[in-house]
């Protein structure tokens, strides 16, 4: 791995994003709008918003980064740029970490905006420190990026890449405790939920909302980061310099 190359990849991904206003809006503005929509839906039942709001702050960055990353990396594979880069002094980790770095930076902005809207405008009731909301948001987004990088190896077209959304992301959303609290799930499903990464991201947000203690939050962030690193390692294993 060469820092010069990793950084070059990250800067290039950010330059591409800056050109693409619609994607940028989806990354930064859409999570805030959805949050506001939800607040409106539960206007007469604010207690529900306080329960679901934090979970959504965990889900949006994960969802959006997964989608954007899996499609952009697939475009690199099918457009020939990845093949060209592999004839140059670029390591596989330079490529993966460059992406993770770029989307991690976007995620920091996204998390700050979403948290600002939720706490400042929508009166989301949070016990823990606000900054941790951003930390958890960035960890979630890096997790989404890492998983997106990994699954893009198994798609041949952008159409197939989008299909991973219902296959990989939606089950995690259903099981993460958003719909039914985890301890009230059937036993088998609870076990499954406990080994899915998004569960721990949502868990971190819920601790932040309900408790001033930060120990559990940091433990959850640690678990999410470990999942992200594992996904990056798997991504590195599936990213091949030589292809068929």
């Amino acid at each position, binding site marked *: 791995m060469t820092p010069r190359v990793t950084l070059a990849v990250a800067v290039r991904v950010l330059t591409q994003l800056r*050109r693409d206003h619609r994607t940028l809006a989806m990354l930064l503005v859409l999570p805030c709008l959805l949050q506001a929509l939800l607040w409106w839906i539960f206007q007469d039942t604010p207690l529900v918003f306080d329960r679901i709001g934090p979970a959504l702050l965990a889900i949006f960055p994960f969802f959006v980064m997964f989608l954007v990353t899996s499609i952009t990396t697939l475009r690199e594979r099918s457009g020939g740029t990845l*093949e060209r880069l*592999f004839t140059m*002094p670029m390591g596989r980790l330079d490529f993966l970490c460059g992406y993770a770095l770029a989307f991690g930076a976007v995620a920091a902005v996204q998390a700050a905006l979403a948290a600002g809207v939720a706490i400042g405008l929508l009166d989301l009731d949070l016990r823990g420190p606000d900054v941790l909301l951003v930390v958890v948001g960035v960890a979630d987004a890096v997790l989404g990026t890492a998983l997106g990088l990994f699954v893009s190896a198994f798609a041949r077209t952008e159409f197939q890449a989008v299909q991973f959304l219902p296959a990989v992301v939606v089950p995690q959303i259903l099981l993460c405790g958003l719909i039914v609290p985890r301890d009230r799930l059937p036993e088998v499903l609870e076990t499954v939920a406990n080994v899915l990464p998004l569960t721990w991201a949502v868990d971190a947000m819920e601790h932040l909302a309900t408790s001033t203690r930060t120990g559990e939050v940091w433990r959850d962030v640690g678990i999410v980061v470990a999942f992200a690193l594992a996904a990056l390692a798997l991504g590195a294993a599936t990213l091949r310099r*030589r292809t*068929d």
Partner: protein
Amino acid sequence: MMNSVVVIEGLRVVRGGRPVLDGLDVVVGAGVTGLLGPSGCGKSTLLRSIVGVQRVAAGTVSVLGKPAGSAPLRDRVGYQTQSASTYDDLTVLENLRFFARVLGLPPAAAEESLAAVDLTGHRDAVAGRLSGGQRSRVGLAVALLGTPALLVLDEPTVGLDPVLRRDLWALFHRIADAGTAVLVSSHVMDEAERCDALLLMREGRIIAHGTPAEIKGSQGADDIESAFLAIVEGVAGGDAV
């Protein structure tokens, strides 16, 4: 062999369950070498093997005395894939700057490369809004970055107008005169005369190798296309070439 830049022995490549190259041997030297053959004969597969991005079933490919695709070669071999292989949403200059940074070159290298392919006037245009020919020249400019020892170009002149094609071939010769070995593929036989050496390829095999004059002479043909046909008919009739 003194100036053999690429040496391939017994190369076998299987794609989609079918052998595309089987036991291919070839040596490429200095100057401009043309790799000519009909669509689907395996030109891109061979070039991908030389730059080290093709999975190979058997055989050896060495470039400048090192295994193809190995780390010491990665800033010494320039490669243009058959598609432009640039980022459509970046400007021409941003594309060049990015690849220059990956290669560890100063930003000025980007502008030199653009000047070489006559695209300085379009440096701030977004690559996706260029014409097909202009875009493929951006890809060529990327391959030229850093004065590589070997330049591998997969059909760089497809779809270009005659004036531009002539200019590009002149550029390839200037690059070769400066010491870079240039390997160019094409499926257009009339580009053959512009090469110092030719590799004629068909169905995954090199059916002739030599200067254009030698190949025409050996078949008593007036042009490479007729020579190609004569060789193919000879092969079909059972004569080895």
